[in-house]
């Protein structure tokens, strides 16, 4: 199965993402690769400090922004919730959402990496 089909099956709104780039599929694919590198660099884990999490909020906010712009909808929706919970000082609930979204995120990123080689 091609990358775009697989991503679509994983809930990514590929058409929307490509349209945002004026139909430039090659650029969309390139940006998916950049997305993987960026998110890996952030390395957010559910065991973050429940008292001091400003840094996590900033990272989650950044992931939300780029996931939204690439229409990686499940990740975007998950981090939208996480950011909102962190802003309203509910880190434990944010951790629960993170635990749920991480496997989906790993699967999507794995799919992108598999096709990037």
């Amino acid at each position, binding site marked *: 199965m091609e990358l775009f089909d697989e991503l679509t099956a994983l809930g990514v709104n590929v058409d929307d993402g490509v349209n*945002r780039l*004026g139909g*430039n599929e090659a650029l969309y694919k390139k940006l998916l690769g950049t997305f993987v590198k960026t998110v890996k660099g952030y390395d957010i884990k559910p065991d973050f400090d429940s008292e001091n999490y400003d840094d996590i909020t900033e990272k989650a906010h950044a992931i939300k*922004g780029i996931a939204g*712009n690439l229409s990686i909808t499940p990740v975007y929706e998950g981090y939208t919730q996480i950011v909102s919970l962190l802003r309203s000082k509910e880190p434990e609930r944010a951790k629960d959402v993170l635990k749920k979204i991480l496997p989906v995120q790993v699967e999507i990123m794995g799919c992108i990496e598999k096709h990037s080689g």
Partner: protein
Amino acid sequence: MEKEKTILIVDDMEINRIILAEIFKESYNIIQASDGNQAIEALNANSDISAVLLDLIMPGTDGLGVLRDMKKSGKIYSIPVFLITAEENEKMLIEGYHLGAVDVIRKPFMSHFLKHRISNIVELYGHRNDLAKVVEQQVARLNYLNQSMIEILATAVEFRDSESGEHVKRIAGMTKALMTEVSKRYPEYYMTVDEIDKISKSSVLHDVGKISIPDSILNKPGRLTPEEYEIMKQHTVKGYDFLMQFPDIIDESTYRYSCDICRYHHERWDGRGYPDGLKGDEIPIWAQVVSVADVYDALTAERVYKKPFSHEKAVDMIKNGECGIFNPKLLNAFEALIQMHGNPSDQER
């Protein structure tokens, strides 16, 4: 097709910058900045930026920091700024609007709407900026024409006095140079460059009251009788009264300088001048400056009743009090000016 307009995209996330660049690349030149400091540098280095797409949350100088800098430099009034945000941070957005941002772009971007919204605002700002330039040019032209009319009037008066009109121009040049020197040396007399320029322009009207003095007195080759001298002295008050009838011919501050200069340019520091016998700093400094310039020019110019004195002789006469007593600080500045530039009549207006 060559693109005329440039957009500055500011976002710490490369993906967001690339997406925005892709959306706008057909219609605009693109400059990218990955943080607030880079954005400020780009704004300072490029005078042709038509819009800024500005991420609010960035490490280091954030979007609000960029807005504050733009407000300080005045750029916010000519360049529309769109705030980029992925969430509802009401406090930041309100502050952004207060600092002058025009609109908010939410992530994920909606390309079609974004293109239209930004192009509409850029066009609107373009018209507004063009209009502001036209108004500025028209105001400058009106001021120039106004000043020309004033100079024509002053020159016409000088012609009656057998002068070529060069006298008023020399007075304006000397007034500007001397006022600048006084302002530089003495904080109590400090004036901005703009105000000094207004004073210099106002000085051309100093003798406008001579229009009311009969030719027989104005052009008398010999010494004036005491009665004739009394009539001659009236040119200060007549000039002042004349100007008081036309408060709208020039802007408010220039008008005030003109009236003061007309009335007080024959007053002297020791109170022995005319028409009001003002003393010391009761005489406005601009009128004091014109007094010195006027006396120097009268001494060094040929008149129907006298030959010209040399520059050196004229300076000595002014310093020795032969033409009345002047403010010592003013004389210091006058002397410094002569040492720096020689003949003060050569000063450019």
